[in-house]
């Protein structure tokens, strides 16, 4: 293997190991509400100790999938298995799976400690053991001073940690998290993302998390399933999702992207030339069997950070039309401190976005509004998209 797409936990890639058994398995699972199909014949394999994210816009069926795993909904068709055993017909209180609810669903009439102890009491655990486990969970989520408080007396972040402690207290085989950070403010959300990921790794549990926030999924998950309208479109590592999105929908949903439409023309050994509707040419390397035929309409995506922006025409053919570059006029600039975003207007009127790291504090010839600039990219910087 010559190249990898981005970082992975080197020792943890069960999905690449054919001998690794599935931990959670969905087989052709469909869920209908009346005529409406919320989940449409989906199959999925999740491995033990994996941090798995279901990512998609609101209403795409993520929560429904999670609720089926928890046992609150039964699939209309298909089968779900946990460690090879079918889950069909097993009621929620008998599943070795715990859920952290979207709005926490803390019991308002119980103290923090009683909320955490609730699941343990249902197990019939001895009183002393319960007290010990509750203390341990409180320590884990750093809420020891708040044991006696009612949920209404806590901040949003503290409530979130109580919900987490309550769901973890029973040491479930699988923890399901429905938008666990959705109610937190940005700063707290970012901190908590890393905490959750650390917690998952140190406890060695399997996490299935639902989110509509691609950044959240990318930060925490080992693998991401991107969903749209009740279907899983791609299951891959965060880096693969970002660098090699399967469809235009995913490229657009995960991160910023420039997508160009054009006609394909095959060149020698795996090289492809695309004459874009925006008036410039793209030359790219395509491996794999899915090489389009001459004259096919294809889409080519380049991420803004892979666009190089400069005043001077990039090296290459010194004159005449060269591939993988285009000239335009700076239309808008967004200065974000660490990076700047340049929206460049092409002759055809399309806007192309490029970002540049603000590595130096002072620049000799800063790019500014209305400047004529060149955008260029390497042949392997973009990706060919199917439909």
């Amino acid at each position, binding site marked *: 293997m010559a190249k990898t797409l981005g970082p992975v936990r080197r020792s943890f890639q069960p999905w690449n190991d054919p001998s690794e058994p599935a931990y959670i398995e969905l087989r052709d699972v469909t869920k209908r509400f009346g005529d409406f199909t919320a989940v449409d014949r989906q199959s999925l394999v999740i491995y033990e100790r994996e941090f798995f994210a279901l990512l998609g816009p609101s209403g795409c069926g993520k929560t429904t999938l999670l609720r089926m795993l928890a046992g*609150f909904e039964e699939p209309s068709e298909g089968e779900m298995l946990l460690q090879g055993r079918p889950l069909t017909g097993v009621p*929620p*209180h008998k599943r070795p799976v*715990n*859920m952290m*609810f979207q709005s926490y*669903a803390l*019991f308002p009439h119980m103290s923090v400690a009683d909320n955490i102890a*609730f699941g343990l009491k249902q197990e019939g655990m001895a009183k002393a053991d319960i007290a010990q486990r509750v203390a341990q969970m409180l320590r884990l989520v750093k809420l020891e001073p708040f044991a006696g408080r009612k949920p209404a007396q806590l901040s949003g972040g503290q409530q979130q940690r109580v919900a987490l402690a309550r769901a973890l207290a029973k040491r479930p085989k699988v923890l399901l998290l429905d938008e666990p950070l959705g109610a937190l403010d940005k700063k707290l959300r970012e901190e908590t993302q890393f905490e959750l990921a650390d917690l998952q790794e140190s406890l060695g549990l399997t996490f299935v998390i639902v989110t509509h926030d691609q950044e959240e999924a990318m930060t925490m998950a080992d693998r991401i399933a991107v969903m749209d309208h009740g279907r899983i479109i791609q299951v891959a590592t965060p880096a693969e999702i970002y660098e090699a999105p399967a469809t235009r929908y995913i490229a657009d949903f995960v991160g910023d992207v420039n997508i160009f439409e054009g006609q394909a023309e095959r060149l020698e050994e795996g090289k492809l030339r695309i004459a874009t509707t925006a008036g410039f040419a793209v030359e790219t390397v395509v491996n794999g069997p899915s090489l389009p035929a001459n004259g096919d309409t294809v889409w080519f995506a380049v991420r803004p950070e892979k666009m190089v922006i400069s005043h001077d025409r990039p090296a290459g053919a010194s004159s005449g039309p060269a591939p993988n570059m285009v000239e335009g006029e700076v239309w808008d600039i967004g200065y974000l401190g660490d990076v700047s975003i340049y929206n460049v207007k092409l002759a055809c009127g399309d806007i192309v976005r490029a970002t540049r790291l603000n590595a130096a504090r002072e620049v000799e010839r800063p790019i500014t509004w209305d400047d004529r600039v060149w955008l260029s990219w390497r042949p392997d910087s973009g990706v060919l998209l199917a439909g």
Partner: protein
Amino acid sequence: MQGLRSFLARQVVTAVPYLWLLVFFLAPFLIVLKISLSETAIAMPPYTPVFEGLKDLLEKAKQLSFDNYLWLTEDALYIKAYLSSLRIALVSTLITLIVGYPLAYAMARAPDGLRPVLLMAVILPFWTSFLIRVYAWIGILKPEGLLNQALIGLGLISEPLQIINTDWAVYIGIVYSYLPFMVLPLYASLERLDLRLIEAAMDLGATPLKAFWRITVPLSVPGIVAGSLLVFIPAVGEFVIPDLLGGSDTLMIGRTLWVEFFYNRDWPVASAVAILLLILLVVPIVIFQKMQEKAAR
């Protein structure tokens, strides 16, 4: 200026309910209290006023008579009537709660479109006069009434059951009449209940029954309390139902009150009975409210 006007407006608005209570509760209460402290007279009105104005207040204060209250403690009839009223009201409230809770629960879980219809069905009986509905129960419960005919027709009993003129008829009457007052507050608190809390409980290993006891019931306590008070308080002083459905040995304070006022024309004793009844009801309610406040904190 603006501030002053809005301040005055606020004062007026808050004063309205106080004024209402003053005119329609406190003033009558003081009058009844005054009567209860006077002595019986065969006259019109049938009592001697204790004081007429402020000037002889002190002088007359000496004449204030607690005899009527002493009298209530001396005659076992009154104590029995009080206790019997409390017992009947308590049992009726419990039965109303047991009947009303499943009703309210089913209503709160009914499909959205059906709920207003069910709510209407609960309120519907109020469109017929209370008195007529209680009279109707005589027709149902009497020995040759609908209930006995139906039971005999089904072959469940051979002799008619004696229900009318017993405490049972009073329980049935109170439960039937006050059920909406139990169901409505219960429905309000059950309908508000977040169903995800039940799911969370089951997710954590609670059986549906456990989830009901540990989550649904505690969270509907405000509804249980409100409904129970709305049934218990009027039931203690209930007069019409024990009078029409109860037997001669059904002793309730409302009836005793009626007998004292209109039969014996002993207004002072009757007033004393009324005042004691009020104290008997207010003190437990206040204690209960204090406990609730403490629990909420």
